[in-house]
């Protein structure tokens, strides 16, 4: 079954659609920083030379990204531009408190496009840390800003940044449900699927081109795979009974799903086109919420031992092994990208909280102080965990660093946001 859906909204909104654009803006995710790292590195991003010829400043996006990461303290240098190849007055920058400074040049590149060159300097060492150049059209200023922020982040932390990634989530507006895709900073939200019936459990394909999810539009849970660029989608699992909890295999060809076609909720795998269904594991209880790890394990929730706990089984088959032992309710496991830790939701007293388990040391840490946390997922660099929670009776998204220090909140002016999933690194 193939359905043709409207393609994602284009970035350039025709004038006739301004009313729609303002409705979209109303549902725009606003990001708010509610906690920062203990030792933030002081960094300056100078105004880029020639940047004032662009309709919107690239460096505003760069500064907002770095600030929001909670790892950097932005040092203001004022409006005087500093070019990518101009000499840097290190003592002056140092005296303003910046340990690093990014400078850059924006120059016309023909055909209405621009070249943006950025260079990063270590001010105590008085040395260049490297440079990067990219070509963009003016309406790509946000994407360019995110790429520059990724460049600076990686040079200063040694880890890849996630400013160019996207997130998926479900927005509930009254009785309507929208599966939306936004940039990691909440901007540029676009609706991939709109429905009168609930949508849950979006899962990104490893290459970021497709989402698998559960839609109730057929009055029962059915798993779909949706191509974001074309709006084409296909049924991946619609067996008798319920079909839910899709999780992509690392190769992007198969999905783990939960089916009830043979009785209770159990784990199966299917090809993304819905063919080739196979049993993955068997138990006498509920098995659900599978998640593939980089090291070939499938983590899942099972109540085979009496209460819902997290187990894992080799993706190629084998015996299931229990992973969580503390407490009577541990659900929604997601392994970190490096496979060393696991986040999940744990019930502590009456509170449901995002918890991190170090798989080697068996140490656990409660990462949040909220009480209705759901659906955690790691950023692709493993540094942050995105989850859904409730504040003042409204569903919001929140992110917390894996050390529990940096905290962000993403909410909309009206409506509930839930079911977040952090997408993979974009492929260039």
């Amino acid at each position, binding site marked *: 079954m193939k359905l043709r859906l409207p393609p994602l909204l284009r970035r350039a909104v025709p004038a006739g659609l301004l009313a729609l654009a303002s409705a979209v803006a109303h549902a725009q995710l606003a990001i708010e920083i509610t906690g920062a790292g203990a030792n933030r590195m002081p960094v300056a991003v100078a105004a880029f030379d020639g940047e004032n010829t662009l309709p919107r400043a690239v460096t505003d996006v760069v500064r907002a990204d770095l600030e929001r990461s909670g790892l950097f303290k932005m040092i203001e240098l004022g409006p005087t531009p500093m070019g990518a190849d101009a000499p840097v007055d290190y003592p002056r920058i140092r005296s303003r408190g910046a340990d690093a400074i990014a400078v850059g040049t924006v120059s016309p590149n023909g055909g209405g496009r621009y070249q943006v060159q950025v260079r990063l300097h270590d001010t105590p060492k008085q040395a260049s840390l490297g440079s990067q150049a990219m070509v963009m059209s003016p309406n790509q200023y946000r994407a360019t800003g995110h790429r520059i922020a990724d460049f600076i982040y990686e040079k200063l932390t040694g880890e890849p940044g996630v400013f160019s990634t996207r997130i998926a989530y479900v927005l509930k507006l009254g009785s309507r449900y929208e599966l939306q895709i936004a940039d990691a900073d909440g901007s540029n939200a676009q609706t991939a699927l709109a429905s009168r019936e*609930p949508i849950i459990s979006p899962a990104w394909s490893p290459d970021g081109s497709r989402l698998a999810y559960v839609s109730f539009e057929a009055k029962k849970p059915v798993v779909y795979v949706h191509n974001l660029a074309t709006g084409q989608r296909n049924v991946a699992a619609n067996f008798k009974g319920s079909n839910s909890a899709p999780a992509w295999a690392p190769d992007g060809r198969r999905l783990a799903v939960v089916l009830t076609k043979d009785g209770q909720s159990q784990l199966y795998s299917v090809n993304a086109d819905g063919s080739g269904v196979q049993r993955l594991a068997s138990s006498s209880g509920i098995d659900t919420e599978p998640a593939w790890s980089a090291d070939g394990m499938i983590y899942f929730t099972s109540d085979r031992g009496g209460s819902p706990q997290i187990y894992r089984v080799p993706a190629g088959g084998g015996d299931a092994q229990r992973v969580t032992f503390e407490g009577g309710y541990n659900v929604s496991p997601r392994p970190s990208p490096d496979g060393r830790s696991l986040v999940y939701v744990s019930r502590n007293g009456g509170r*449901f909280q995002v918890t991190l388990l170090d798989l080697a040391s068996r140490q656990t840490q409660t990462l949040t102080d909220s009480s209705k946390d759901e659906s955690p997922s790691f950023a692709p660099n493993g540094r942050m965990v995105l989850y859904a929670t409730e504040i003042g009776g409204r569903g919001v998204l929140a992110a917390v660093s894996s050390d529990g220090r940096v905290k962000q909140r993403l909410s909309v002016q009206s409506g509930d946001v839930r079911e977040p999933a952090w997408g993979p690194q974009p492929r260039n």
Partner: protein
Amino acid sequence: MKFARLTLSLIAASVLAACSSAPSTDGQGAAVEDRSGAASSGVDSSRIPTVNADGSGGAGIAALKDPKNILSKRSVMFDFDSYVIKDEYRPLIEAHARFLVANPKMKMLIQGNADERGSREYNLALGQKRSDAVKKALGLLGASESQLESVSLGEEKPSCSEATEACWGANRRGDMLYSGEF
């Protein structure tokens, strides 16, 4: 025929006893004998479903919507963390089983639900246990496997949306929908 009916009645009684925490002895299980409908005499005529050869339309369907007919009631409520059909729903389950047996072309979608606390996907699995309990009871009372599909809506379609015990209770239910209603 009599033997067959008696057997069904015994199966029904044992099923419902198995499904309930405190088996009832009030004799209501005997209502199962009415399943062959119009052929019997002396039964409450308001409970006799009309059999349609083509399995759709007619008075049998009207009964499903008639507020005075038990068939218009479609919800089975469950206790917290429980997947057992309570005694009070025995007449309801029996009436729907009779209707399905009398209307073999009629299909039913049973939607299980869960309260909102905790994981959406785990709640989906818990809702499935409730719809499966309803399906099993209907099947053991004679409805055929091909007529029944049990699915879960998890916590996604609450009938009540406040964070109170009463509300959570209202959301722990199984709903029975017939062909044309889903």
